[in-house]
Structure formats: C-alpha cells, structure tokens
C-alpha cells in the first residue's frame, strides 16, 4: 500500500508543482518507489518542471479511460531510480477526472509504489478536490502573504470535510505546512509574515521552510527538480523537508539573514 500525499494550496503560483517535483524526487533519492501525478487537467506543467515534456505519449485521462495501461503511461525519470511521472492531459474537459476513475488508478499504482504524490491544481474545483480526496497526508504550500495564507486555510477546511478520510470517519488527513518563497531579511524588517506567524494562524505543524531562491527559476528553466541542485539553499531546504516527512528531526536552516558583522548588529544596517 502506497502512502498518498497531496501537495495543495488553494492559491496558484505559490510553488505546488516545484514542491511536488522536489518532494517526489527526494523520496525516490531515499530509495522509495515514487510516482508524481499531475492533477492539473488542461494546464499540465509537471512534465516541464521535471524536464520530460518531450516524452509524454499518454496521460492521466487516457489511463482513466482505459486507452492506455500503466506501463505505457508512466514516464520513468532518467536521473533518479524508482521515480515516475504521470502527466496530466491537455483536454479542456475539466470533469474528465471522475472519482471512480481516479480511485481505480490510485489503487493500481498503490500496489506498485511506496509513495504517490498528487500535484494539485490551484483553486477548489474538481481537479483540486480529486487531488486531495484520497490523500493520507497533505502538504499545504503557503507563501508568507495574506491571500496565500487565507487560501491555505480554506483548503484545510476542505481537507477536514470533503476528503475520503473525513467522509468515512477515518483518522483525519495528516496536515503539514510548507512555507515557500521565504525572505528572512524582509521578515526581520517586519515587512513579511514570519514562520511563527503563519504556523500560529493556520495551526498546522511545519514541515519545511524554502527560502526565496534564484535556484528555483534556474531549476525550472532547465527542467531539473531543484532538490537535485544540492549546492543551492532551496535544494538543501527541500532535502531537510524530506527528512522531516520521513519522521527525522532536522534543525531549520535559512530562517535568518546571513550573519552580519558585530558593528552592523549593534547599530543596525
């Protein structure tokens, strides 16, 4: 049985796909057989972030409709062993994801994989609801910014009432907060919500803080998940996040500005 993890946020552009790619890749690096599914029907992008856009033949909707089988549809990553991508289709039919269809695919994948990462689309429409419905765990990606925090709160409400676990009265979906595009120097100046602020407002346990980083744009430009850029701050922050996801205790890095000299510290800069 695979563990199903949804990467969700409500708001768009906060880093769901970047995080899905990084987390899926990170779990595979740890030796877990992992598949990342793009639930953004009509606006597929995971393939691009993973650098496999030219290898897409069949997609998620083909698989649901029985036009293709799992072996034909999954794209095997060439960099990391045990990592697979299931691309979204480019159809305009938003209702192509039926609950029964998604359930069947997840059940089939569940027999072959350790982790299934569901990359949710933005919003709270069908695609987003399907991405979170079957989840065991949820990673709520949030930027330290008011509209993102509010949308994350909406998503937390939906996880608590519209997921399979809530409907069937099972143990609730395990929620994690992943703060992305964090800028410690703006936080220190009082211009940006801090980690403590956001986790206090949402009352969800923190799993990682990814600093605003040049490395993220570079990674998506070349189609390589940022976690593979081990020299970068964002890459290291995602590696730490994986450790915490696996239950290991890791100290937080990149939460404060780079160290200043004693003079600057005393008199401000």
């Amino acid at each position, binding site marked *: 049985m695979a563990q199903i993890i949804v990467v969700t946020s409500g708001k768009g552009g906060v880093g769901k796909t970047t995080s899905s790619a990084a987390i899926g890749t990170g779990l595979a690096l740890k030796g877990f057989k992992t598949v990342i599914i793009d639930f953004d029907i009509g606006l597929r992008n995971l393939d691009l972030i993973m650098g496999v856009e030219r290898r897409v033949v069949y997609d998620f909707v083909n698989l649901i409709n029985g036009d293709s089988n799992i072996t034909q549809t999954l794209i095997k990553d060439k960099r990391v062993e045990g990592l697979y991508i299931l691309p979204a289709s480019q159809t305009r039919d938003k209702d192509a994801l039926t609950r029964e269809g998604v359930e069947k695919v997840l059940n089939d994948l569940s027999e072959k994989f350790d982790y299934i990462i569901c990359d949710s689309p933005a919003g709270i429409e069908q695609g987003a609801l399907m991405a979170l419905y079957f989840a065991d765990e949820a990673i709520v990606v949030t930027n330290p910014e008011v509209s993102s925090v509010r949308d994350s709160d909406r998503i937390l409400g939906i996880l*608590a*009432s519209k997921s399979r676990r809530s409907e069937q009265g099972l143990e609730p979906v395990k929620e994690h907060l992943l703060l992305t595009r964090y800028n410690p120097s703006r936080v220190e100046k009082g211009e940006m919500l801090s980690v403590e*602020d956001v986790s206090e407002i949402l009352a969800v346990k923190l799993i990682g803080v990814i600093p605003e980083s040049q490395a993220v744009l570079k990674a998506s430009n070349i189609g390589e998940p940022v976690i593979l850029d081990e020299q970068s701050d964002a890459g290291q922050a995602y590696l730490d996040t994986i450790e915490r996801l696996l239950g290991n205790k890791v100290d937080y890095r990149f939460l404060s500005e780079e160290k200043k000299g004693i003079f600057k510290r005393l008199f*401000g800069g």
Partner: protein
Amino acid sequence: MSLLNYFRPKKTTVANQAKERLQIIVAQRRRADDQGNMLSAMEKDILEVIRKYYLNIDPDAISVQLEQNEDDLSVLELNVTLPDDVK
C-alpha cells in the same frame, strides 16, 4: 534586532497588521465550518427520530437551516416533507 531598536518605541509593523487581519478571517471560517458541521449532525439526528415514527422517509425530505436575521436574532428552520402514504 539592533541595539538601537531597544530604545525606539515599538511600532506595529505591516507584518503584524497582516497577522491580525488573517487571525480574524481564519477564526470566522472555522466558526462557520463548525456551525455547518453542527447542522448536518443535527439533521442526521432529526432524521433518525422521525424514522422511529414514520418509516421510509427520504433523507432529502428534511432540511435544516440556520439564518442570522439580525444581530440578536437567529432562526432555525426545520422542514420535513412527509411521504404521501403515511399510515
């Protein structure tokens, strides 16, 4: 924090303002959700009671709504459509 900051009066930062605004929104959302959950639980209980006396009642034949009309007036509206073939 620089040393000079200790002597300046504490200003409310924009981050603090954001936090306060968000805390209000989040509290409202959670309260509304809790109320929704309470109403659906109440609906379920009422349905069970009615089933004791009238068999075969359709779950959709019951609706429970809570309306906030004025600040100090809430109306709980309960609507039950009984089937035609009631004994």
